[in-house]
Each structure stands twice: as structure tokens, then as C-alpha cells.
């Protein structure tokens, strides 16, 4: 069922679109910023379940008297479930019991505290730092792996594709003001792995075809290789998306952000391995000679 779609002819338009979306993403990340959760910003998070008669305003009013700084109350899943975020920066061992007591006293209804999290400023700074290190390390490790397995042009191409995926995913999170927390970082790293996986499959085929058809230009080899692997690319994306959509819909409120980031990442990663990673090989003028030179280096 190998189709013959002319992908290469669409490279140019796709690249323009990619560059525009990428620039917008950078713009949003820089100027609108990312909506960091308490993991990275510090503060207190309380998930509570109460009677349906309680609304967000009454929770806000109850907390207003406490001088907590920025307080954010929003509905969370079911009717009567709320998520409260308090941006209290300094470590205060007594803050949570005080908030709890206040809510018990003022809401006049049964309150069930389902989840309480508090991250101090020092810890949140460390978590942010280690997350940035983790993502950078992952990118570097991928770069190195591809460099060992392929040639540097492939390595560069895959890293540009990865960068593209990570930045656009974060850009969309910034645009939609979705929260960035530890599980989103896990999602981003998994996207890095997934997108790489997709790119490697196509690159593998391009390398194989470059050696097989030495007379054909890199454009045609790319096109052939993308088409040959297209069925696999689509089927794997579909099965992964089936699993992810099922987490997104049924996995509960806590996994929603994570699965959303992953769904975005799988879509963008699939796109980028075809429309970002492959054009770069053409741009870098990769040919079967590139591969032969490398061979000579190894077996002179």
C-alpha cells in the first residue's frame, strides 16, 4: 500500500509554516511567558470536594480575609470540585492548617481536602533547574546517539526537529495558558523520545536508499523513503494516539495536562520528522558520498 505522495514539493510551504509557528511560539514563550505551576513557582495547591451549593466566589471570599497574596480558585472536574492555588512564597509550616480551618469555618458545608501540595521557594527553584538540565541532557544525548549511529548532518537535522517540537509544544501551552508542572516536563521528554523515534525510522530508510540508489538526488531519496515508511508512521501514530486519547478522556483531571501535551507532541513530532528533519538533509546537501566518506573514515 505504498503511496506516492510528493512530499518534497510541499517542503517549502511546510517550512514557511513551521518557521512562522515556531517564531510565534518563541514570541509567546518570551513575552506571554509560561504558566508555571507550584512545582516551579512555589506556593500551595489545594484540591477540594464540597457540596454543589458552594461556588468559587464563596471560596474566594473566605480566603480574601487571610492576606495570602495571589489566590486562584477554579473548578476542577466534577461539580463541587475546586482547585485553589495560593502564591504564598515564604515557607510557613502553619499556612495549610490555617487555610483549612478557614474553609471549614466559612463555607458552612462539608469540605473534603482531596489533595494538598505545598512547595517552598527553594525546592521549586531546584525542580525548575533540574527539569531544564534534564531536557537539555536528553537533547544532547539524542544528538550524540544520532551522531554515533549516522553522520553529523543527520544529527543536526534530528536536533532541529526536536527543538521545533519542544518549542512549539511549549508555545501552545503558553498561548492557552496551560500549567507547566513536573508531569508536563515528563511529557516533553517523552515527546523528545517519540519524535526522535519517528525521525530515526525515516533517516534509517534514507540512509539505506542513499546507498542503494546512488544516482538519485537526495530530494527523490527523501521522498521515496518518506513514502516507504509512511504506513508505519501513520499506524504507530494512530496506536499511540488511541492510547493517549483514552488517558485524556478517561484518565482523570490530574493526567489531563500530561496527555494533552503528549497528544500535541505526537502530532507535531510526526509532522516534524517528515517536514523538518528530512528537508534539512537536502539543505545540508547530503548524498551517498556523505555516507561513503564516513565509511572510509571507519574502514580506511
Amino acid at each position, binding site marked *: 500500500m505504498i503511496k506516492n505522495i510528493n512530499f518534497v514539493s510541499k517542503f517549502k510551504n511546510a517550512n514557511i509554516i513551521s518557521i512562522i509557528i515556531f517564531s510565534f511560539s518563541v514570541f509567546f514563550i518570551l513575552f506571554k511567558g509560561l504558566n508555571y505551576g507550584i512545582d516551579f513557582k512555589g506556593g500551595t495547591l489545594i484540591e477540594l470536594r464540597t457540596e454543589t451549593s458552594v461556588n468559587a466566589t464563596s471560596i474566594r471570599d473566605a480566603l480574601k480575609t487571610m492576606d495570602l497574596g495571589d489566590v486562584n480558585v477554579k473548578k476542577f472536574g466534577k461539580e463541587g470540585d475546586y482547585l485553589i492555588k495560593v502564591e504564598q512564597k515564604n515557607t510557613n509550616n502553619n499556612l495549610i492548617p490555617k487555610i483549612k480551618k478557614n474553609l471549614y469555618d466559612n463555607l458552612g458545608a462539608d469540605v473534603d481536602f482531596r489533595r494538598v501540595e505545598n*512547595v517552598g521557594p527553594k525546592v521549586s527553584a531546584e525542580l525548575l533547574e533540574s527539569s531544564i538540565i534534564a531536557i537539555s541532557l*536528553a537533547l544532547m544525548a539524542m544528538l550524540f546517539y544520532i551522531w554515533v549511529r549516522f553522520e553529523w548532518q543527520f544529527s543536526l537535522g534530528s536536533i532541529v526537529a526536536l527543538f521545533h517540537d519542544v518549542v512549539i509544544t511549549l508555545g501552545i501551552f503558553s498561548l492557552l495558558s496551560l500549567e507547566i508542572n513536573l*508531569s508536563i516536563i515528563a511529557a516533553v521528554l*517523552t515527546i523528545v523520545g517519540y519524535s526522535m523515534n519517528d525521525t530515526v525510522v525515516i533517516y534509517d530508510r534514507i540512509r539505506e536508499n542513499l546507498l542503494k540508489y546512488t544516482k538519485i538526488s537526495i530530494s527523490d531519496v527523501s521522498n521515496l523513503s518518506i513514502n516507504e515508511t509512511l504506513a508505519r508512521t501513520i499506524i504507530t501514530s494512530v*496506536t499511540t494516539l488511541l492510547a493517549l486519547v483514552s*488517558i485524556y478522556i478517561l484518565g482523570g483531571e490530574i493526567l489531563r495536562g500530561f496527555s494533552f501535551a503528549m497528544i500535541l507532541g505526537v502530532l507535531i513530532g510526526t509532522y516534524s520528522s517528515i517536514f523538518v528533519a528530512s528537508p534539512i538533509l537536502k539543505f545540508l546537501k547530503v548524498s551517498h558520498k556523505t555516507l561513503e566518506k564516513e565509511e572510509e573514515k571507519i574502514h580506511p
Partner: protein
Amino acid sequence: MLNFSKINIITIYLIFFLISIFSALNLQNENNLVLDKKVNLGLDLQGGSYLLLEINSDSLVEEKIQSKVIPLKKLLKENNLKYENFKIVEKKLSFKIDDLEKFELLFFSKKDNSVNPYIDNYRSFELDFKTLDNNYIEISFSKYGLLVINNAALKQSIEIVRRRIDDVGTKEPTILQRGEKRILVELPGLKDPDRIKKLLGKTAKLNFRLVSNNSEFGVEELLSENDEKLKISKRIVMSGENLIDAQPSIQNQQNEPTVSFTLDRLGSQKFGRATTDNVGKRLAIVLDGKIISAPTINEPITSGKGVISGNFTFQEATDLALLLRSGALPTPLDIVEERTVGPDLGEDSIKSGITSLIVGFVLVILFMFYKYRIFGLVANTALIANLLMLIGVLTILEATLTLPGIAGIILTVGMAVDANVLIFERIREELKTEKSIIHAFDTGYTKARITVLDANITTLIAAIILFAFGSGPVKGFAITLGIGIITTLFTAYFLARHLTSLIVLRNNNKEIKI
């Protein structure tokens, strides 16, 4: 690639069987364990509290540097060294010295140096000094001196934290050192950590000091439990270290909750002497700088037993007794991170996690069957085997399953078929050019091998990095994802390949559809 020797086949199925059998251990009845191994549920799934405590050794360092003042002055005097402008400023001692060289020699002498002992394992002195202008010097703890103070405080804190938590009686608490300054506490099943937080938030330094009438030197003013201003002598009659037991009790006359304590021999002597000498005076009981109560000494107490009263509720008396029994923390503890999940949220998370796992699993299986028919069944068999092995390995490792961990399993389900998809697609291609069906399958497997490996190693790298840098639940995700990749490779390349070979070889080179 399609020929398997008998030994190969036996090995493959033996490995599969031996690993996946462990997954069955999770279904055991708790009272009748065959082997006590199972996948543990993370706090986010079973509910419970996670606390990260940090010791704050600043006050301790200040205390320690103050304790150096008297021995240091003594040392200077004994050696006829003249000093002036002696000051204690922020964990440092500063003064002017007349003979700097002689001082340095004394300060860094390895023999009988009680002021500045040499720490053998770090090859460093406890204190260090810096010369300023005009023979002024500044003494402070050296890097290793601070480290020794810090490590001792951390070790002692962990011990006291453990005693306090054990005393409250929560089930299976985990108390571990994290880094140089932190203590990790995990309390599974605890719905409300407020009481424990309160207990850990107090250093519980107890001492008994006399209430003084005159406002002479060595007196500080503290508020009593009835907001009465009292002058309290700084001299400590006896401290909490001499307590060997403390229990909540009820005073019969007023039915008032109190704390009864028992002193050790030294404490009994000290207490006996002080109460004998000061009958009629008031003795303040001071906890963490606050007066609990200041009763009048009616008669000498020489039995080594006493009672603390202070308008307690019974809960307060119980908690105070617990704190006194467990001993004082060397430094205050800050709670720098706290995560508590209620048991019903945990249950909901398990439910929604399992539901989405089953739905995702069924969807993937149906899709694969639709796409590849009989070989879809092969891939699906491999997928089920994969899940069993994944859970088996998690059981062997007694890994902790978190909510993101379940997400990792679901993701593995989605991505695990990739290996088989890669292989099947390759075989489809080969079938177009290759006359011999068996040969086409054979080359398909061979050619796809490198790609499958390459593709999975990249995801494995991501999983390893996540494991190294992730915390808590994210680590759980990395574990399932990483193990999932390995079991995927095994099931696709051994189990599924063997099943495929059975189909293809039986088919005897007749037309076959994939």
C-alpha cells in the same frame, strides 16, 4: 530469522514464563502469601503524605561559636596573649590580638587543642581564622567544621523525627536522608498530616529555670501562660535531656490533663537540690523559649518524678509527653515541600487509570487486528505478553506504581506495537519483490532489526534521563516507560517472531497476506 532451534524456543518461553509469572503475585490474598513481592502503590494512588524537611543549622552554629568563647579566652590568658574588643558577630568571633604569630601557632596546634580540634577524616581544623587590618582577626567555622555540625545535626534530627513518627503510630512510614540538609518522610495512608507537621515543627527544647525577683544580669523577661510578665533566670536548673520518660496524666482534684515525667539519676539529683534550696520560689518550665507554667515549689522534690501542668487539653498533654519522650531536635525543621493525597482521590485515580488502560488497550488491539488480521493477532499476543512481563518486572523490582506510571504503561501499549508495525511493513515491502514468502519474512525481520533498535534506544535514553532527574511520580513514569521498552523489544523480536515463523512455515510458501 525464522528458524528457531529447540533450545532457542525453550529459552524464549522460559524467560517469558519466569518473568510474567511474577505479575500473578499481585493477585495474592494478603493473609496467604506465597512470596511477599508486589508492585507498591505510590502515595498518589493509595493516599498519604509526603514531607520534605530541611534542617536549619544557623542557630546551632551560633550556639556552637558562643560555646567557644570561654575556652578561647582561657587559652589566650594561659599563654599570656593580650586581646581587646572581643565581639561575637553573626557566627564569628572577632578581636584584636597582640602577637599574631604566637596565636596562629596555638590555634592550629594538633596536640590537645580543645578550642580548635583537628578533624581527622576531613584533614581539617574545626575553626578557621582570617586576619583583618591592625592585628584584628575573625574566627569562624571552617568548611568542614560546618559540615561536621550539619551532619551530626541531620543524623540526630532523623533519629528524633523517626521516634516522634513511630510514637504517633502511622503504618509503614519511610524516613530517609535526602542530600546534605533534608529529610524525606513518606506516610502512606495518612489523610491529614497536620498533627505530625505540628509535632515535627517543634524543637521541644525543655528546661527548668527559676523565676527571679531582681532584675540583675542573666535574667530575661518571658510571658507566662496567663500573660504575666516574669523575670526568668538564664541559669538552667535542669533540661529535657535528663528526662527518661513522660506520659500524659490526669490530676485527680481538678480533672486536669497534665504530663508526668521521670528523671534520670543525674536529673533527680539536680532537681532535688534545686527544689530543696528554693522552697517557696517559683520554678518556670520553659519549652522552646515559652513558659508552659511557673508553679511555686511547695516542698523539695527528690523522687525524680514530677508533673507539668499548663491548662492543657488532653491532646496537648499527649503531644507534649510525646515530644519530651522523643527528645529535642538539634535545630528547627522547615517543611520545604509537602504533598498529601486523600485516600478517595487515590482510589479515583486508580479507577480512572485502570479504565483508560483497558480502553486504550482494547482500542489498540482492535486497530491492530483490523490492520493486519492474523498477524495482528500475533502482534496482540505479543502486546499482552509484553504487559504481563512489564508487570512481572515491576513486581520483581518491587517498584512503586504512580499515576504517571500507569500513564507510562498505557503509552507503552500504544508504542509497543511500533516494533511489530515496523517489521510487518518491512515484510510487506519485501513481499512485493521477493518470490519466496519465507525469504521475504526472513529479510523483513533482518532489515527491520536495526531500525527497531535505533528507534527504541532513543526513547530509552529519554526514560533514563527522566529517571535520573525526575522526582516522585515522574520517576514512576520513567520506570514503566523504560522497562516497557525492554519488554517490547523482547516480545517483538523473540515471541512475535516465533509465532510468525509458526504461521509462515506451516503455510508452506503459499500466498500469504499481511
